[in-house]
């Protein structure tokens, strides 16, 4: 009725409720899609599903979300908002009502989720192209929505091999969760989901840091030193593909297929999850030598090719291919400016970099000096408070 009414409906619901409505809508779609591929269905149920394939069909779900987006003109409103213009001018009759505006916004996030679950990561990030995720302005104030957005965007970046962007997205989101920890303590379905997504993000962050080491915020780093993650990191750095697989299976979203299994042969290795997992592991396999190369390079400033070939027990031609692969994989697209999260240029991402001059490898390392500024400022503030407290004490 919200969509078919000729005039905006006079209804005011809190943003939290609107988010939960949309979230639940996608959840039902997800559950039903998984249900109809379940091997436990009997033939009667399979026949019913085959005859009524329009129930929770992916097209109807997408239609609903797109209609909400179109009706509220949310994309135009977002464009105006982030360029500093008045969003009211482009909102249109429906868009001005907060009900429709927020439903439109949450539908964008829902599209991000649905496309990620179908494996279309490029489109998933593209639907958010008018939302500037890098500015800290909170266009929507529902924390669960923020966390979900960053979770899916981060995951899409990982599958697109934009590890630097994924690391940045995850650390921003995890810092946000740390700050708002109080809000997520009460027991509720939404908070459980936020807590689960937080753990998943830490796991994916660990994976990204193994494949693409770089220095990150101290507080997040401290959490990763915790035994739960540290063990996994050590195993992945040693090249244990099973550990990569475990991390992926824990942290990935629920993948769906848009068609019921009765239309195709339902072999277990054809399940959407297995397909996405295989693609991820292929990518890992291509990069499996990189941590070893990196550890040798860290030890020297120059090294002849033969010497490195000897260390790695490879012949020189294979070593050359390894080094070219290292450079190729460390050179990915990184966002630097612009509203859309898809934008970016190629940048060398590795802290340990090198170039080859004839047969000599010249290595450059990045050393990060100890930071003491923040620590001193914090201590000064604390002493200040202490001094003020002492002065106000009466004896």
């Amino acid at each position, binding site marked *: 009725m919200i969509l078919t009414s000729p005039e905006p409906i006079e209804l005011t619901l809190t943003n939290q409720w609107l988010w939960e409505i949309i979230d639940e809508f996608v959840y039902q779609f997800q559950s039903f899609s998984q249900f109809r591929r379940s091997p436990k269905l009997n033939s009667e149920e399979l026949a019913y599903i085959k005859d009524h394939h329009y129930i929770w069909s992916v097209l109807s779900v997408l239609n609903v979300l797109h209609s909400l987006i179109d009706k509220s003109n949310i994309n135009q409103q977002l464009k105006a908002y982030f360029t500093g213009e008045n969003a009211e001018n482009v909102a249109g009759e429906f868009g001005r009502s907060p009900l429709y505006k927020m439903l439109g916004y949450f539908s964008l996030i829902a599209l991000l989720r649905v496309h990620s679950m179908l494996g279309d990561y490029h489109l998933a990030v593209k639907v958010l192209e008018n939302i500037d995720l890098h500015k800290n302005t909170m266009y929507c104030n529902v924390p669960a929505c923020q966390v979900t957005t960053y979770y899916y965007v981060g995951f899409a970046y990982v599958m697109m091999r934009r590890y630097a962007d994924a690391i940045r997205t995850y650390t921003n989101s995890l810092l946000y969760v740390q700050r708002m920890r109080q809000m997520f303590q009460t027991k509720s379905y939404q908070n459980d989901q936020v807590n689960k997504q937080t753990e998943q993000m830490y796991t994916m962050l660990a994976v990204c840091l193994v494949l693409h080491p770089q220095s990150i915020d101290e507080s997040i780093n401290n959490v990763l030193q915790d035994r739960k993650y540290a063990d996994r990191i050590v195993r992945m750095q040693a090249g244990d593909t099973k550990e990569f697989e475990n991390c992926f299976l824990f942290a990935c979203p629920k993948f769906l297929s848009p068609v019921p299994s009765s239309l195709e042969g339902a072999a277990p290795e054809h399940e959407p999850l297995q397909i996405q997992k295989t693609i991820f592991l292929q990518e890992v396999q291509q990069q499996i030598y990189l941590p070893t190369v990196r550890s040798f390079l860290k030890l020297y400033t120059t090294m002849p090719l033969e010497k490195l070939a000897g260390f790695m027990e490879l012949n020189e031609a294979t070593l050359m291919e390894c080094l070219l692969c290292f450079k190729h*994989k460390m050179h990915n697209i990184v966002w630097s400016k612009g509203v859309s999260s898809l934008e970016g240029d190629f940048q060398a991402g590795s802290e340990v970099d090198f170039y080859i001059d004839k047969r000599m490898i010249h290595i450059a390392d990045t050393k990060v000096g100890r930071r003491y500024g923040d620590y001193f400022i914090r201590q000064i503030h604390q002493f200040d408070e202490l001094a003020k407290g002492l002065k106000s004490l009466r004896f």
Partner: protein
Amino acid sequence: MVSSRREEAETIRTEINEWLANVERYNFKNLPVFERYVELQVSENFYDLEASLAVLKLYQFFPHLYKAEIVCWILLKAIANLPHTDFVLCKCLLGPGQLDDLNIVRITYLANLLELCQFKSFWHEKNKDQNLISQITGFDDSIRKFVCHVVNITYQSLDKIILKDLLGNVTDAELKSWMAKCGWKEDHGTIYISNQEDIIKTKNITEKITFDTVSVVMYP
């Protein structure tokens, strides 16, 4: 009639861009136009990632309309766009069974060789698949462009013979044209790529404490 195909491509592109902006991208009735667009990309040597992903998505939603030849072309065009990760994005949209198609297995194998930078093996293997790849105009040149990109970021100078191998046993004349395109110079059998010393230097990141950060704690 090259120019008319180009014009056709331009017209279709406008129509497709309109569809991609709304739900028409999920309409299977638009599929023949999308497929024609892929054909034109192959023959006229241009590339449109979004349109290709839209085709794969339509095949995902409507598996009975799947056409293996179109998918092979899309995958080969994606490989030609390396170092972008378009090929991985395309793989994620393929359904079960489709990944087992022999041609697609072969294409995946070639893509793997390129991602691992095993260029010599790639050129050797690619010659076995001429009928599949020869339809893509400009495929070899796109791959050579990728090889030059990787060489550019890795080397300061290297032997001419190694470079010729990496580019797939090109003739001296072809090598000269690639060197001109990339701005490389030759010096007695060694090719000088670029001065990497300025780009790749040891960095010491020390903390910069500016007056602004400290002014906060100074006497207000």
